[in-house]
């Protein structure tokens, strides 16, 4: 059963706990609004996120993945966000190679005080993905999963 196939767009946002997740919290505190397509997953640091986890999110059915960490030079764990950026660039390459839009994965940097910027980033990214349309992988998710479960 796919629970959210009728949802127009599903974006998974991996947010680091110290900055981006806190910025998303602040966006709420400030009662800002942004499109509801974004589902946030908290991770300790964007440096923790590995390439496969992002790719699998797309395979499971996400139309896009947002990776949001601290400002560069300001990582709580010193340089996890730099590692993450490199990884996101690599993922973009992979996506291009398999014929998927590289724009479906993006790295964002923000401080915990940047609630407004989180909302803006969410807004812009959601608009970008809406214009790209649902991921072509959506239709094939069943096959992919079947393949994995074999």
């Amino acid at each position, binding site marked *: *059963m*796919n*629970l*959210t196939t009728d*949802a127009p767009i*599903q974006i*998974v946002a991996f947010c680091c*706990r*110290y*900055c981006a997740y*806190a910025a*998303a*919290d*602040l*966006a*709420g*505190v*400030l*009662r*800002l*609004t*942004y499109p*509801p397509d974004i*589902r*946030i*997953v908290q*991770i*300790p*640091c964007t*440096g*923790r*996120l*590995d*390439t*496969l*986890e992002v790719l*699998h*999110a797309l*395979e*499971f*059915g*996400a139309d896009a993945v947002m990776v949001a960490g601290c*400002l560069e*030079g*300001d990582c709580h*764990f*010193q*340089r*996890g966000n730099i*590692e993450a950026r490199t*990884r996101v660039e690599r993922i973009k390459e992979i996506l291009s190679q398999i014929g998927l839009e590289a724009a479906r994965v993006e790295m964002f940097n923000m*401080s*915990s*005080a*940047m*609630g*407004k*910027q989180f*909302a803006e980033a969410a807004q812009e990214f959601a608009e970008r993905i809406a214009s790209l349309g649902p991921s072509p992988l959506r239709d094939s998710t069943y096959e992919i999963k079947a393949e*994995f479960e074999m």
Partner: protein
Amino acid sequence: MTNENQTHEVVGSVLVVGGGIAGIQASLDLAEQGYRVYLAESKSAIGGHMAQLDKTFPTNDCAMCTLSPKLVDTGRHLNIELLLDTEVLGVKGEVGNFSATLRRKPRYIDVDKCIGCGLCVPVCPITLPDPFNEDLSQRKAISILYPQAVPNAYFIDKLGIAPCRAACPAGQRAQGYIALIAEGRYKEAFRVIKEDNPFPSVCGRTCHHPCEGHCTRALVDESVGIMSLKRFVVDYTLAYGREKVDPAPRTRPEWVAVVGAGPAGLTAAHDLAKMGYGVTVFEALPVAGGMMRVGIPAHRLPKGVLQQDIDDILALGVVLKTNSPIENPQQLLKEGYNAVCLATGISTRDHSLGLEGEDAEGVISAATFLRKINLGEPITVGERVAVIGGGITALDAAAVIRRLGAKEVFLALDRPRGELPAYHWEVAAVEAEGIQLLEHTTATKILTENGVVSGIEFARTAKGMFVDEKGRRRPKIEPGSEFIIELDTVIGTVGQQSDLTYLHPHFEDLTGDKQTLASEIPGLFVVGGRKTGASYIIEAVALGHRVAKSIDRYLQGEPLNQVEEMPPVLKFTREEMAQRLESGEIQLQPKFEPALLPMEERVTSFREVVLGLTEQQARAEAQRCLQCGLCAECLACVEACGMDAIDHNMVEKVEELQVGAVILAPGYQAYHAELSQEFGLGRYPNVVTSLQLERLLNASGPTSGHIQRPSDGRTPKKIAFLQCIGSRDQTHDYCSAICCMSATKEAILIRDHNPDTEVQVFMMDARAFSKGYEGYYRRAKQEYGVQYTRCRISSLKEDPDTKSLIVRYMPEFGMETTSSSTAPNSPPQMLEETFDLVVLSVGMEISPETRQLGENLGIELDDFGFCHTIEFMPVETSRPGIYAVGPFREPKDIPESIIDASAAASLAGVYLSSARGSLSRAVQYPPERDIYEETPRVGVFVCHCGSNIAGYLDVEAVTAAASELPHVVHADHLLYACSQDSTSVIQSRIEEHELNRVVVASCTPLTHASLFQDCLKRAGLNEHLLAMANIRNHCSWVHSDNQKIATQKANDLVRMAVGRVVSLEPLYKEMVPVQQSALVIGGGPAGMTAALTLADQGFPVHLVEREDALGGSLRTTYFAIPEFDTKGPKEVLDDLTTKIAENPRITCHLQCELTKTAGFAGNFNSTFRNNNGEVFEIEHGVTILATGGREYQGPEYGYGSHPRILTQSELETLLASETGLPTLSPPPEIDFGTVNQTIMIQCVGPAEEYCARTCCITALKNALLLKSEKPDCQVIVLYRDIRTYGFYERLYKDAREKGVIFLRYDERHRPQVLHGEDESLQIKVVDPTLQIPLTFEPDLLVLSMPLVPSEGNHSLATKLKVPVDHDGWFLEAHVKLRPVEFASDGIFLAGIAHYPKMLDESIVQAQAAASRAATILSYPERQAGGAIAKVDPGACVGCLTCVRVCPFEIPRIDTQVQGVGGIWGAAYIEPSVCQGCGTCVAACPAEAIELLHYRHNQVEYQVFSLFEDPVTGPPRKR
């Protein structure tokens, strides 16, 4: 210093005053060392100035990002108690046992109940400037200090009781309903009125309105028309549907009888009914309302209006019995009433006028007259009528008789009309109706003919009163002024009195207590009677409230006489108001007066004369209110709050607290630059302070981080910074130390935001004196193009059209200017430049409150209020056991404040170590349930958060959906999941349903996870079996516009959380034993101090020194700084050496070097070799690195090539030997007698790249020493910037006064040093101001060689695995917030090893390092593990990726472990030091590392569950 001599009992707690970053750090240090901490903060939340900052220099770290985790840690630390809204009034006792007196200011919100949801904010009608945003934006009177505030609780800004409310006998919250009227919220305004007054209809029309008499607005123009506003609300709600009153629930069994349905009786009935009692009102007359009904004519109070109020009271369930006179109240008690209230008020008997002829026919009392009219009883009156009396009743009677057709009506007033208790227009209206006013007139006798009135003899009143034979006060009369008016009717008004003569004679002497209104008969209360009668309706209402409260207390068995504390009443002076008027805060605006009925309709009918305000008028009139109390007490917040957290009746409390030590961290206030009027702050909108700019730059500031001009919101294209505003000026002889860097930071951020914006900084010297500052300053110039101009501006003016600022200044010659007016080689001339925005870099000052604190505590302060501390004991005040930290003792930046704070914690620890742990608290949890064999049983708890979540999405639907998910065995929704009763529900549901996983769908885990984790632990579950779905911050609050979509998203988030929680496993922290001793490397002043501080706290210390004696740089320093220090370096050294020698806990190892160190925090093992080649090992729990530095001795400026070129330290040695002091090394061979002209060159060699901080001060010290040794000697200092930060500025001033010459050189034109064969020195330099080359031939050239890192720093760094920066200084964990520790746990640094610094700075840093070290040493074991990375050696190929990628250099290849294929050598991550970022996990190509709690499958389950039901199997193959 140690606690061994103390005789009294030592209290194991510390009071920290000030919740800024310094106070926070001191609190955390002490709490982690086992002390109980009380953190007193005068504001409503902790965070201080740092919370206001956008970024911090020199790393541009986000201030909130770095501060916020510390705030949360402080807020939830078991051993830190936050005392918010608290001031310290005094401290008695002595170190180890102080008693502190605290003033706890009312916050009006219960911090424990408030959940920070903010529902109260939109309903608050009062808008105030927001001081957190430096008044650049507005907030409500109910507010939170800042969005991330800790505690996350609101406060109410209420100064006290507004004068209008204080003046009202019933305490009517006038400011409250006025504020609501101003917003057009009339129905709510009506609610507020009713809160204090059940007769709004009456009091809006007939009150004597003492409120208006006390209205502050009267000091400006005219009082606010409070009564008209009340009437407006009544009329409005009547016209647009007054809300139906529901019966009050009967919650109490007792019945109360109220005798008398006047204002007092009905108010009492109203209150008692609302309290839940049964109430019966007995009224002798056929109608209810008392004098309101029968004493006031309809043209002033329409009967229907009054009836509305009475009906509302009856609707509560009050039973009314009219025509029911009561003679024996005791009978009612016998009949079963539990209490009786006599509220019969004014007597119906007529009182004597005291005039001759008053018994004649045609004389009637006004009360009787009005009663008969109002009850419709027949009455005959004549055509010529006089009304005697000066009250409202007289006016009423006159107006009524006019309406009844009297031809001529005279109204005799014994006072001028202005003194009547009526509005002037009310008097004018009566006059306009044709009634003749006889002012200053009193009746002397009534003339009669055959027992019928024929006229009155009047007389003019004179000044003063007399008492007649009947004891009445009467006005004196002017002799001979008598005159007679012929009349046929006389209506007399006399003071009406209440009495109880209607009662059975048995009760004739019945009286009620003045306060409690209780009579001698238990259960019988008396309102009225001889002593307690009321004159005005509102007073009667007040009595009604009072008697109801008394009766309630009586019935509840409580003492009747309870003193209720009240907040202070506000009173403003005419001067204050004049000032606010002048500042433009208040504008003159006369009162809006109500319209009156046209004259022709008035005298022919009983229609209401006063027509009331229109809506537009009412709102305008309401906006005239000055909001004296700030909070208006409209109670709208109380209605909105779902947590019952608001209590407007809180009052200030004074409390005592026992503590062992006190740390003062009250911080600074920014200089009020309005006082320097020449800079236009407050007058010119586009002049802002550096703190205001900080808020403008901040993403959560008033402009969301967009820099806008306050005047027009435009982005400024040209910005000027003016430095040293309130520093280094006529009134401040110190440097504020932070402003140069903060301006540089702000300039960089401005250029970051808007690269087109030009920034120019006007300054005297660039004081970039600390680690990384010079590089930052250079980057600002070179990379960001910030322009620095060395001058003080000569004037600043505003262009009135554009509101831009015109700055006039004298540029330094040769500087590049944007205007091309200066041709090369022409003398400098005054320039004028226009800027869109001017920023004043305001300095640090001590606030009057802080000064008061210092005075209250009896500690020494200087003229500016800065705290005096003991020489070379930098944080000790003049009173033992009281410490001062942060800018309170000298202007300083964040890391230095943090160092101070830790140092103070250390010193407090020295005194209190015997009581360590005695007051700290710990929670006992039940044993944990083993769930490994259990299948997941998930409980989901969905929070309404009042309406914060439930208002925007369907919580029930989310709960229902959750209950359908696999593994979910229980789903429930809770009103407030975080409330205490809800957490107990969760706890009992865990037990009841044998849940082994919990999902809480509520707010953010960042603030609330620990709360629910605690709940799991209490129920015997591992706390890591919790997942939270953030359906508030990430859902309901951001998708409030679409309930369907928000509900759907909440379902998704809950499902994802269930997916995650199912995959979670218990996590444990293991306890690792701690070697409770320290290793200190380096035996200079820093190392010695650190060793002593730890040893004094009871920890054994090994002090290792490379040289053959302790002392380091102190051994080659011979002089104190003149007029700065009194203690010489030798004294300091001797003192330290003696103490170390005497301390049995310190073992010194001289001439030893570290060869190897292994282990981790709590368990280090280090190997040393001494100069004999002997090797030994030391086990230690912590390492403090204090290896110092050395003086640079490079070839710059000809050093080493000429005997008369010296370093500063060589000069000091020369001076020492000249004064006969023994020197460690031989002095330079120079004949001191021949030294006349001396030149010093600053910024030599490496100091051109980084500022070595101490060189300026050292040069000035030596210059002054030279001057005092040889006053004729000319000393010339060639410098780039003089960086005498903080109080060292006084040294600079002193040097200039003593004749030291300062000559600046440009870094592009360094001084040239030449020396010929004749051994003479020649120095050439270009004067940058005059652009003239100068040549000197000095006798001595002294080079201010900077301090450079010690030799061997790099190899030591490798051995300890700690980093050094590119200049070779050891690099701390975080430049701002962790200045004395390394990123690797358990290793700390102090002194010059960190960066060049002055002796007292090294000492304080050493004490700070000792404090941080003590947080580890204080416990015999420490926790390790938790959410950390773990290697599966069986999958590890030993590729070193993790070793390379870890930011903390923690993974290593353990050769004792077998990896893939049984090959020896696999990665090992030490659990006690892993930071848990997971960078290695993502990088590991073999997927051999997992981050616990964020395992691959745990992250992926959560994502997978967004698309599918949560499953138990792995979502994918790896």
